[in-house]
């Protein structure tokens, strides 16, 4: 029996082996830990897990996390769009430097990112005395948490948009200008619709990280229970207190957020596949 095989395809056994390895790795390193989080949270029943979430400190942590993301994500979306716009559509000196700087938060340890803000805004820091005179609290308060979160999550939107906008070029913007559109009209009616999927994707990733950020926020937060603890910090506090069910219950909310993010992204990609293809085609 002669079996036909395309010259570019591997031996069937090779592809089966590769698939098995991939599935195995995903199962062991991704699915299993995620499942463990939920299993541990529900070990003593749903009631106990719910009680761990529905208590003042946990509720405060959830509120703080949501508030931080609500401030940091839109601001980073605006900054990310501005930075990508500048890099993709204009020529200026120092463009390469700006591109590199945008990636800085990815290459710096989050702990260092947090310490930077303590050095600048902390009591012993550069602006410490001034801020105290004005009675403004940055470190161990919401502003510091938001700043640290923004620093860490800054690259997500910009990194998503820069290659997209460079790829799309300036032609459509130039066409809009020559047809009489103002800069703002050009942005709203030409640029934004062309980047909306990339933007949405960047915002989703940015949001996931903003809610989950631990290191940088840990340094500036001060871990004041019910006040400056975000959800990831609250998980750590509970875990260190041997309150495993509580820790995993709050952790499973974070895990759920991540799953919702992924599902949302997939649904959007599936629902608007045609439109996405149209925008990418030129």
């Amino acid at each position: 029996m002669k079996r036909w095989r395309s010259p570019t395809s591997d031996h069937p056994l090779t592809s089966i082996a590769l698939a098995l390895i991939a599935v195995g790795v995903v199962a062991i390193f991704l699915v299993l830990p995620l499942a463990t989080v939920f299993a541990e949270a529900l070990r003593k029943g749903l009631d106990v897990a719910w009680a761990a979430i529905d208590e003042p400190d946990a509720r405060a942590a959830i509120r703080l996390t949501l508030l931080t993301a609500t401030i940091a994500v839109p601001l980073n979306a605006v900054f990310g769009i501005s930075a990508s716009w500048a890099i993709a559509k204009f020529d200026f000196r120092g463009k390469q430097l700006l591109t590199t700087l945008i990636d800085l938060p990815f290459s710096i340890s989050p702990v260092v990112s947090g310490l930077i803000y303590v050095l600048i805004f902390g009591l012993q820091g550069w602006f410490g005395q001034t801020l105290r005179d004005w009675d403004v609290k940055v470190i161990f308060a919401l502003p510091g948490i938001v700043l640290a979160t923004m620093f860490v999550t800054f690259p997500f939107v910009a990194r998503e948009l820069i290659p997209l906008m460079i790829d799309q070029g300036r032609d459509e913007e130039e066409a809009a200008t020559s047809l009489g559109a103002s800069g703002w009209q050009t942005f709203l009616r030409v640029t934004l619709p062309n980047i909306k999927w990339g933007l949405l994707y960047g915002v989703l990733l940015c949001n996931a990280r903003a809610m989950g950020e631990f290191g940088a926020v840990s340094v500036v937060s001060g871990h004041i229970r019910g006040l400056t603890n975000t959800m990831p910090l609250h998980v750590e506090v509970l875990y260190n207190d041997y309150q495993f069910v509580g820790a995993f219950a709050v952790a499973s909310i974070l895990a759920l957020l991540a799953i919702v993010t992924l599902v949302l992204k997939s649904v959007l990609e599936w629902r608007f596949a045609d439109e996405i293809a149209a925008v990418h085609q030129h």
Partner: protein
Amino acid sequence: MSLAVDSLVKRFERFPALNGVSFTAPQGAFLALLGPSGSGKTTVLRILGGLEYPDAGSVRFADLNWLDVPARERRAGFVFQQYALFRHMTVAENIGFGLSVRPRRQRPPRAEIARRVEELLALVQLEGLGKRYPNQLSGGQRQRVALARALAIEPRMLLLDEPFGALDAKVRKELRGWLRALHERMGITTVFVTHDQEEAFALADLVAIMNAGRIEQYGTLEDVRRSPKTAFVAEFLETAPLKKADASRHRGDGHPG
């Protein structure tokens, strides 16, 4: 509304793009900027459209210091080499864009814009395609949408960058004849850039032959062909596919050779 371009100089970071380009054209002229790639012809076109600004020199058009007029107020209909259609808008939305972004007081009502779009679709022979998206059109159709979009703003000047470069030979010839007829009907001063001399000679009244940021020769088709002024022009035209043909026979008929 004659056009007078005087001593344009433009330098890009690494190379000079224009080294003093001057020419004049009467109202309603059809002018070709012809030259090899890198000769600066597209830069001249972009300066006329307000998409680049020269380092020195002046442009007068319609009794205005044209360089002082911001790009969005020039009403210079620009047709881009790759058409630059708004890919997320339908054909009708593309064509109506220039009208819909006018300041509120000058903006025609929705129904009026729709009527004008229909008129333009008929003019470029694309009736019934208004609801399509650009990626559902052929190259020749996209080209005509780009032209209709530029015409929608009632341009004072029409600027075309390699208008037929991306099309196959047959469509190119059809559109050429059609564009020439349209120009004769509307009488808009038109400048177009091409590296294809056959195209330049088929369409234009006046030809500026450009090389290395300068105009080597400028004049009517007959003049340029009969008496090339520089070695470059002679050599450039020597490579013409219709070098042995009589220039006057090809003027404006849209079907040379």
